[in-house]
């Protein structure tokens, strides 16, 4: 197998899109670690599964960026939530925000790469993220639960 630098068609535009997605994944992980303390017990398993999904995506992006010789962006020490998280409802609402931001980032990766493998991976992330987003939108009762155009700006 040739070196990643030779086999990859992930160009600087795609790498920048991946960095944006990584930043969104960092933020999502921070959000889930925050809201676990506020969510009702019945939603904890889902939140932990969602957190793990973001952890896997973060790792995959970091590995891909490293393979193409790009230094992955780091997480911020903390993030500002649009509204204070004080209870289960506000915790679920910020999960919706984090998932929505991640959907936008992944759709942007789809749009900013012609590398077929990366496009497929980003499409999978967009699809799986849409289900996560829908579940939290259902919790906060934001119809339609499933966004019609996931990731659309």
């Amino acid at each position, binding site marked *: 197998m040739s070196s990643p630098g030779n086999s990859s068609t992930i160009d600087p535009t795609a790498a920048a899109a991946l960095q944006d997605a990584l930043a969104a994944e960092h933020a999502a992980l921070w959000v889930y670690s925050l809201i676990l303390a506020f969510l009702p017990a019945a939603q904890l398993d889902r939140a932990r599964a969602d957190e793990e999904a973001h952890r896997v995506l973060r790792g995959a992006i970091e590995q891909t960026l490293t393979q193409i010789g790009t230094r992955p962006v780091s997480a911020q020490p903390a993030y500002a939530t649009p509204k204070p998280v004080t209870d289960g409802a506000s915790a679920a609402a910020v999960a919706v925000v984090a998932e929505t931001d991640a959907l936008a980032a992944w759709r942007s990766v789809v749009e900013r790469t012609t590398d077929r493998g*990366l496009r497929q991976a980003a499409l999978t992330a967009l699809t799986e993220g849409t289900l996560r987003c829908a579940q939290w939108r259902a919790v906060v009762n934001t119809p339609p639960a499933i966004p019609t155009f996931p990731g659309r700006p």
Partner: protein
Amino acid sequence: MLLAPPALAGCSFGSSTKDPGPDPLIALAAAARADAALAAAVVAATPELADRLTPLRTARTDHATALDAEVARLAPGATPAPAPGTATPAGTPVTAAAVQAAVLASGKAASAAALTLPAERVGLVASVAACCATYAAVLA
């Protein structure tokens, strides 16, 4: 690894030597209309399914509108798409399971198209694919 640089680097996007054929978004728009019509037929036959299927019907109608607009953008003056109908393909059972199967197939078709579309068109189709796959997942 999910995002590892693929062994598909030799694959190029599009080909100037090949007939591009009809706009692939035409078929995706038709599928969106068909899914919406099937969902409407199922709700008409089984009104208690309205809560489950009406959001899907609305989403697929909106998908058809957006896809039609994108088709028209690249081919202004082309034959306008048929208006949304209420007829469902003959032989399709009028059940929630049939709607699930239809939207699953539509999502797969959109996903496949998204792998080769140019950048300025792929976002819409990717969103349609993700939306369809998610409806298929929650209806399963």
